[in-house]
């Protein structure tokens, strides 16, 4: 054990880093991007314009970003975790003050012609910050309630800011990521039990503070016939598209729902419908399986890592990806209220793609530097 750590103590050379890269994981990412290209090609009725080509260019930019982060020493990332966290909070504050209002919520800022959604970045920065907080903490120390004050506040601050945008879906996902990291860090079970019980009691109160459009979504979800022309119409058409795919699908570019514009925002939130309609259960289960492999692959990276920082960050990212996929697919199936959550690397849109590639880059870096030595754990 001792000797293995020793040869990883110093930084690796570039060749060593490339050798250590998880090439299988890279392959999974490339597969997912290919699925996205096909889906966007069909969303445009069989044309690379206007979605697929643009998205491919963005993916290439994302790939460069991913490699750059992957080659960065994880200890450097750990050192700047809290700075990144602070940057995320500042961006959230900027978006609250100057952000672009789209679809009733203020969640975008434009940086050099590039639309950025700080709440997406914030989720990754939160995982980094929590990872660095627990990096040195022993199980006993984590048991102390005073030690948990900072991480809990670190979770609540961005969750509160995102709720104010208002973006209920992302706020819940951010809170869940924080919770998962705390759990993995060894926070005692009974503390979770108390928080969950408290949240359950707060739901009726919180409902009163929801924005009208959010309440509308929940009500529409509970009674889809209430608003057949609004969100209910979308859910119904989405279910028709999904269900009509059958076992083998209606064939590439033969999906009528998608082609005939029954589906709103088919290139973003409802992209999974296009896959399901054209390629049937075989296609949709394949994509679901691919996504599961990525989620579990991230978890595997976490389990193979030998420092707490890397473990917690990789687990946080795995949970983030998992929640993305779950919320999006459950939404198009009409199982949870419509939430405006896209499918990473498949949906059209730059902000989510770049954010996902940053997350993958950090995962890669965790994997490459899985055996590096951090300063000794104290207490």
């Amino acid at each position: 054990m001792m000797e293995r750590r020793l040869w990883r103590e110093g930084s690796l050379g570039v060749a060593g880093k490339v050798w250590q890269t998880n090439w299988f994981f890279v392959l999974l990412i490339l597969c997912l991007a290919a699925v996205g290209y096909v889906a966007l090609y069909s969303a445009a009725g069989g044309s690379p314009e206007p979605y697929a080509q643009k998205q491919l260019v963005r993916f290439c930019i994302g790939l460069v970003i991913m490699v750059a982060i992957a080659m960065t020493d994880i200890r450097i990332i750990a050192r700047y975790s809290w700075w990144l966290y602070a940057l995320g909070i500042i961006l959230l504050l900027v978006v609250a003050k100057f952000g672009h209002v789209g679809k009733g919520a203020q969640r975008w800022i434009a940086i050099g012609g590039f639309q950025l959604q700080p709440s997406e970045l914030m989720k990754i920065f939160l995982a980094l910050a929590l990872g660095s907080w627990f990096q040195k903490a022993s199980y006993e120390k984590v048991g102390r309630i005073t030690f948990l004050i900072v991480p809990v506040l670190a979770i609540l601050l961005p969750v509160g800011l995102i709720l104010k945008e208002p973006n209920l879906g992302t706020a819940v996902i951010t809170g869940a990521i924080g919770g998962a990291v705390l759990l993995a860090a060894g926070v005692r079970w009974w503390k979770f039990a108390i928080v969950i019980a408290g949240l359950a009691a707060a739901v009726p109160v919180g409902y009163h503070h929801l924005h009208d459009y959010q309440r509308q979504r929940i009500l529409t979800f509970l009674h889809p016939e209430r608003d057949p022309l609004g969100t209910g119409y979308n859910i119904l058409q989405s279910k028709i598209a999904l269900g009509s795919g059958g076992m083998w699908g209606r064939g590439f570019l033969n999906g009528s729902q998608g082609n005939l514009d029954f589906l709103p925002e088919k290139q973003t939130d409802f992209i999974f419908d296009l896959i399901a309609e054209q390629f049937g259960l075989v296609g949709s289960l394949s994509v679901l399986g691919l996504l599961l492999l990525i989620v579990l692959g991230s978890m595997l990276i976490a389990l193979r890592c030998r420092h707490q920082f890397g473990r917690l960050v990789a687990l946080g990212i795995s949970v983030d990806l998992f929640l993305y996929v779950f919320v999006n697919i459950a939404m198009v199936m009409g199982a949870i209220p419509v939430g405006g959550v896209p499918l990473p690397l498949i949906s059209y849109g730059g902000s989510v793609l770049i954010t996902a590639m940053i997350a993958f880059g950090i995962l890669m870096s965790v994997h490459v530097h899985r055996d590096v030595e951090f300063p000794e754990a104290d207490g």
Partner: protein
Amino acid sequence: MKKEIMRSGIFTRRALLVAGGQIAVFGILGAKLYKMQVVDGEKYTAMARGNSVSVRLLPASRGRIFDRFGAALANNRQNWRALLMVEQTDDSASVLDAFSKLVPLSDSERTRITRELHTHQRYVPVMLQDFLTWEQMALIEVNAPNLPGVLIDVGSTRIYPESELLSHVVGYVAPPHDADLKSDPTLAMPGMRVGRTGVEGFNDIALRGHAGAQQLEVNAVGRVIRELDRQEGTPGTDIGLSIDTALQQATTNHLAGLSASAVVMDPRNGEVLAMVSQPSFDPTLFDSGVSNTQWQSWMSDPRKPLINKAAAGVYPPGSTFKPAVAMAGLSSGAIGPEEMLNCPGHFDLGNARFYCWRKWGHGMQTVTTALKNSCDVFFYQVALRTGIDTLAAYAKRFGIGADTGMDITNVSPGFMPTKAWRARQHKAWPLGDTVVSGIGQGYILATPLSLATLCSRVATGRAVQPHVARHRDGVLQTGSAAEDWPEMSMPSHYFNLVRQGMFEVINAPDGTGKIAKLALPGVQMAGKTGSAQVIRVSRAQRERGFNSMDLPWALRPHALFIGFAPYDAPRYAVAVVVEHGNAGADAAGPVARDIMTDALTLDPAGRDKPLNPPPASPLQSS
């Protein structure tokens, strides 16, 4: 070291737990996909093939408008129409061709349909033709297989039973503009109309109500198999007006053939009982778009039939303004209640000479006699002593140049000048302008509605605001009781002096408005005549013996009259403006007298139920 092993052990256990949860949730998603795509796949395939669920909006019925006694003034009538459900046809152009072979479509109709096919959302049907005859309906039904997506539906059309009689007050509806569609997408439904003017325009949102929706299962040719769900909309609010159709008719009869307008108000609460602007127009012409020739003929008519002159026509109030000047002078202390001023026939201010209408003058006058004689010189002096800004403040309290709160569209507040207004134009206020303001000339502008308001406020001493919406969904609105309106907070004996003067205008043997004396036993009217010059009369013309009757019609002065009755307990206030009618007493006085006689005879404000049986013919005045 041991600690690190324990920590990583806990992490591994808990991470595996999370991973297990992730696998389980993906498993559930996969199972749900299997259920939807394979188990229920055929159901969804069928729905996709025929797109068999169709969502349709159910337009809310527009709120109706009634008169004071429940007679319908605006109502909805059902009509049969053919709609095209865009989502149920693959080739709307050929359907349109097939349809036009059965029911001929004009070129402009086809253009409209093509435009709507492109602009409307898919679930919004496009109207092909309304007012279908039985033959046309039968033809469409028989040929249904050739007309996928076409269906016959009941629509509703706005009708105005009283037509031209109330078109200015009730207003009209017209097809929505693009801006309307943006604010409320349900207006894109076929046959939807937007209130444009009058009560229809002012209360449009309340009258519209909220649309409902239905989900239908339809087969491939668009025939409805069953209704899956239905959600009724909320119909629009019914509005009961304070207008009495019988009095409106009587008033219209008295103005027939003139370019004139009149308002009858209940001075106790501001309810408008009749509001007439002549000539008028047929409000139903707007429903399906006005033809170009019709529009041209309205626009070229110098009597402006589309304008509601009773509320939007502005005129110099002339001598009908004098009661307000008297109240302003008395209340501000500029003139004492018993104080006398001399009228030698003219008033000199510096080099300028202002004439009284009576060349040889009235001699010594009090407020009361000056009103009776309509003495100009007296009011020149009162205005000068009061000052234009104080006068303006009082005039606005009486409703001249101020928003009176009238609840229809296109109401002009008129205009009351002040020094500040003149200063904004970088001009000084010459005192001569104050002098002419004393007799309602110069910059002052009033509408018949604001003159009726002035008359009402003088008659009752309450700051009533004119309004027509009396009931909403059968509920009496506040403002229909005198107590709902505040007192004017001016000494009541000043009001009495002014009312006395107005009484003598009509009832004194030498009153300037004695032509308007009522022929009813035991009831007296008080009032004031006025005439407003359209062109300026020069001193030279005046000395040559000027007669305005020699002028062409469009240059003659407007004739005005305001009055209230009964004198001791006013129930009615009336304002009449006859455009280019020359002197107020001659042209407007008899009209006002006849309108007042009918108001007192029909007495809509004095009873809550219709007269039963209705009078065979309204009492003719002498």
